[in-house]
């Protein structure tokens, strides 16, 4: 039997969550104040969980590396949030949202988790509207919807191109209210550097105060990691500069299993790379594909400007290959199709871009209507590229955007370490091998507002934590703090000849070349070797300026890059072990005659969860078999 117990409750799919909630142990309202909860990260998942737990009466300590809880990278999500409200009356339902999500994820997610996500999606919209989130509305004053990839209904709620910002500010304001009430404390500019386990349970964290350099201990009755994804292992991604794998990686090294790290999402519509000084990539929301048409010239090396390429010389390849979904195919499909055209020599710009064209939409709807929908995105595009997308098509290319993999969690969002809960992008649970657009915001808020607040209480009650109080004088903290201090001292003492960023860039290029949109066994083996080489050089030749007792951005980066250099190898190992193509994971050896991904349900309909065995020792790969009782596994087709 697998060591991985998903703890999915019995009963019909649609009743599981309700039944489970009825069976969870409760903490009485006046006892909740006796418990301290640590929440790391203040994005949608962390902000929502911290606020909700504090509202319930728990004492919450919330940590973020940013200077304010309002700046977590959820803020940059553009397009929207899905919910099975069926307001447009187009036949949507909890079942359809569930089905689209599990199919979109290429059948590599747990049915029960995904169903619950769809079930609570409607409550999220209610909650956010009640907080004063200004969603887009129709003239009659009711909420507006738009369509996102992988769906044939309009179920996406949005606030122009700034939906993430508005949802995050809603959660942030709820959290600020709890700070004012004294139920929540915010520790900003604090970075979690390790996890403290006491008697087999997660009971605290070690952080570094990024202003003073002080190493701090914080104890609690449960630890919630809401620390986002690991996209920055590729160096260039749409993530914020500070996004990192450190919190989840440190927990992995303390015994939490890492699930499906090879499931990474390459988003099809980003502004292409230019110049080797480039520090990050900028996303152009998927919502643009509602009105934008993707094309390349029909002739190789057609250097004419787009305005001079007539219709008959254009290849609208998504509409051609996938007539049923057209430009609205899921992200993994759209990204691979763009790569295929560019690799075949049809790319525009410097060969690594395709056009996203709004000409027809502007003709049909008028410039004003397009501006109302996408104004801020067009504005951003122009600022970065100096080209006006109202007049000339955007040039876009896929870029790393989101990571479906993460720490393994059970139905309660609890990792293999008791008392360590993992929420939002940091866990692996809901998106399988590919996430559909507008589902990240949904999952972060579902985990934070509507799942963890119940399951964390169950953990506290079931383990009788009221009688197991500890504080930071516990010797377990001494040992972990010593590890943290040792690592920082080592980084500062190497005084080599290369900057931290130079290592990060080198790692990123390796990841992109060998673990990007297409992967092969040969390439992955090379990647593992290369990553090891870079890592060894890092620990001998990195130069970290300054000291540990001050604000030191080089030291912060160095710690994160050191962890990416270990994590990247695990990602490659996972990709190598998964001998199939599914979702965002495309193995060149496993494709159909039409270059579509070929899944292997017989051998790989499972979650791969990796267990740490020690540095430079191969980790162990555990399997959680995925049982599909409600949907039939089919070859995904968007034709």
């Amino acid at each position, binding site marked *: 039997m697998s060591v991985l117990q998903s703890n999915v409750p019995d009963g019909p799919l649609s009743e599981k969550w309700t039944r489970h909630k009825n069976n969870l142990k409760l903490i009485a309202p006046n006892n909740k104040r006796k418990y301290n909860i640590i929440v790391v990260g203040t994005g949608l998942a962390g902000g929502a969980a911290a606020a909700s737990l504090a509202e319930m009466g728990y004492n919450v300590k919330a940590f973020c590396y940013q200077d304010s809880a309002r*700046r977590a990278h959820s803020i940059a999500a553009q397009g929207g949030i899905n919910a099975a409200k069926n307001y447009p009356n187009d036949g949507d339902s909890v079942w359809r949202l569930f089905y689209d999500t599990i199919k979109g994820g290429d059948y590599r997610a747990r049915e029960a988790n995904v169903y619950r996500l769809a079930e609570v999606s409607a409550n999220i919209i209610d909650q956010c509207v009640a*907080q004063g989130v200004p969603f887009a509305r129709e003239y009659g004053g009711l909420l507006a919807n738009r369509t996102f990839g992988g769906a044939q209904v309009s179920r996406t709620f949005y606030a122009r191109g700034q939906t993430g910002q508005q949802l995050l500010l809603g959660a942030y304001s*709820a959290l600020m209210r709890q700070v004012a009430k004294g139920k929540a404390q915010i520790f900003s500019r604090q970075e979690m550097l390790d996890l403290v386990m006491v008697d087999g349970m997660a009971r605290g964290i070690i952080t570094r105060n990024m202003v003073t350099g002080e190493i701090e201990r914080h104890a609690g009755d449960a630890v919630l990691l809401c620390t986002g994804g690991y996209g920055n292992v590729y160096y260039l991604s749409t993530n914020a500069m500070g996004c990192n794998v450190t919190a989840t990686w440190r927990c992995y090294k303390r015994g939490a299993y890492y699930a499906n790290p090879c499931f990474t999402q390459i988003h099809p519509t980003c502004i292409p790379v230019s110049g080797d000084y480039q*520090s990050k990539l900028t996303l152009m929301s998927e919502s643009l594909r509602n009105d934008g048409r993707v094309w390349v010239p029909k002739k190789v090396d057609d250097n004419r400007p787009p305005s001079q390429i007539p219709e008959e010389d254009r290849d609208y390849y998504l509409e051609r290959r996938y007539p049923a979904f057209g430009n609205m195919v899921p992200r993994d499909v759209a990204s691979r199709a763009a790569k295929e055209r560019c690799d075949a020599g049809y790319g525009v710009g410097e060969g690594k871009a395709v056009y996203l064209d709004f000409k027809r939409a502007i003709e049909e709807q008028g410039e004003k209507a397009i501006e109302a929908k996408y104004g801020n995105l067009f504005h951003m595009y122009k*600022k*970065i590229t100096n080209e006006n997308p109202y007049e000339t098509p955007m040039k876009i290319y896929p870029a790393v955007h989101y990571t479906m993999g993460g720490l393994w969690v059970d139905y309660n969002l609890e990792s293999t370490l008791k008392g360590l809960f993992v929420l939002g992008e940091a866990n692996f649970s809901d998106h399988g091998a590919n996430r559909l657009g507008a589902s990240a915001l949904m999952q972060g808020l579902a985990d934070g507002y509507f799942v963890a607040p119940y399951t964390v209480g169950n953990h506290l009650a079931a383990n009788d934590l009221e009688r197991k109080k500890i504080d930071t004088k516990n010797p377990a903290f001494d040992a972990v703090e010593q590890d943290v201090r040792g690592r920082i001292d080592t980084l500062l003492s190497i005084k080599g000849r290369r900057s931290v960023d130079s290592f990060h860039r080198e790692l990123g290029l390796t990841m992109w070349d060998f673990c990007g949109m297409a992967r092969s066994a040969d390439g992955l083996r090379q990647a593992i070797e290369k990553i090891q080489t870079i890592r060894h050089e890092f620990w001998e030749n990195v130069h970290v300026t300054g000291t540990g007792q001050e604000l030191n*951005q080089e030291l912060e980066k160095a710690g994160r890059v050191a962890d990416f250099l270990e994590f990247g190898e695990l990602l490659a190992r996972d990709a190598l072990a998964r001998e199939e193509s599914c979702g965002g994971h495309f193995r060149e050896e496993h494709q159909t005659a039409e270059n579509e991904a070929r899944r292997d349900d017989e051998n790989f309909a499972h979650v791969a969860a990796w267990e740490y065995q020690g540095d430079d020792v191969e980790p162990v790969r555990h399997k959680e078999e995925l049982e599909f009782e409600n949907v039939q596994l089919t070859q995904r087709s968007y034709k």
Partner: protein
Amino acid sequence: MKLTLHIWRQPNTEADGEFKTYELPDVSEHMSFLEMLDVLNEKLISEGQEPVAFDHDCREGICGTCSLMINGQAHGPDRETTACQLHMRRFKDGDEIWIEPWRAKAFPVIKDLVVNRSAFDRIMQAGGYVSVNTGNAPDANSTIVPKQNADLAFDAATCIGCGACVAACKNASAMLFLSAKVSQLALLPQGQPERKSRAINMLKQMDEEGFGNCTNTNECEAACPAGISVENIARLNRQYVSAVLTSRD
């Protein structure tokens, strides 16, 4: 292009700061302003010098972390553009650029170009929310909001909390910041029950933090990268006056 940079260097809050001058050859016009600073820092590190500390994160103009006075203008010369979205094509060969942190009593310098903006969080804690607990919300479409109000509320809600308004204001006032939140919630039905206490308490907190008052010079609007209009300050003033005159607290 070749640039001469005069950058504010200050080791910590207590220490005195000063401008230091750096020459940077080979700046590409396609770089963003912050990428130009990255290149400078790589150069400093290779020469064994301390890199310049500056705040930044998303680098797409939405998180509000970056906070640079560039040639005396908050976020630099382009309208509705954060420093991270400013590109070097805006400058020319031989330019001298002065780079400073936000200057305000309520935003103490932490190091070099990094300031402490936690006063903004405390203003939000004083009332920048709707008191609704998770789980007790009615159906989202049960309250109709006229599109015009929803759109105005959205325009106010796009504030990124960067603090450029404070840095640009001769009084270091936070009125634009706080008016954006007060306006957003005053324009929506969900914000009505607490609109009086919100306006009074947030303003009180602003005063306590050491921000100055508004004297209607509108420099905040000119500097705001999110395009927040000073009409929000007018709305805040109306909210405040009516709250003071009618509040039962």
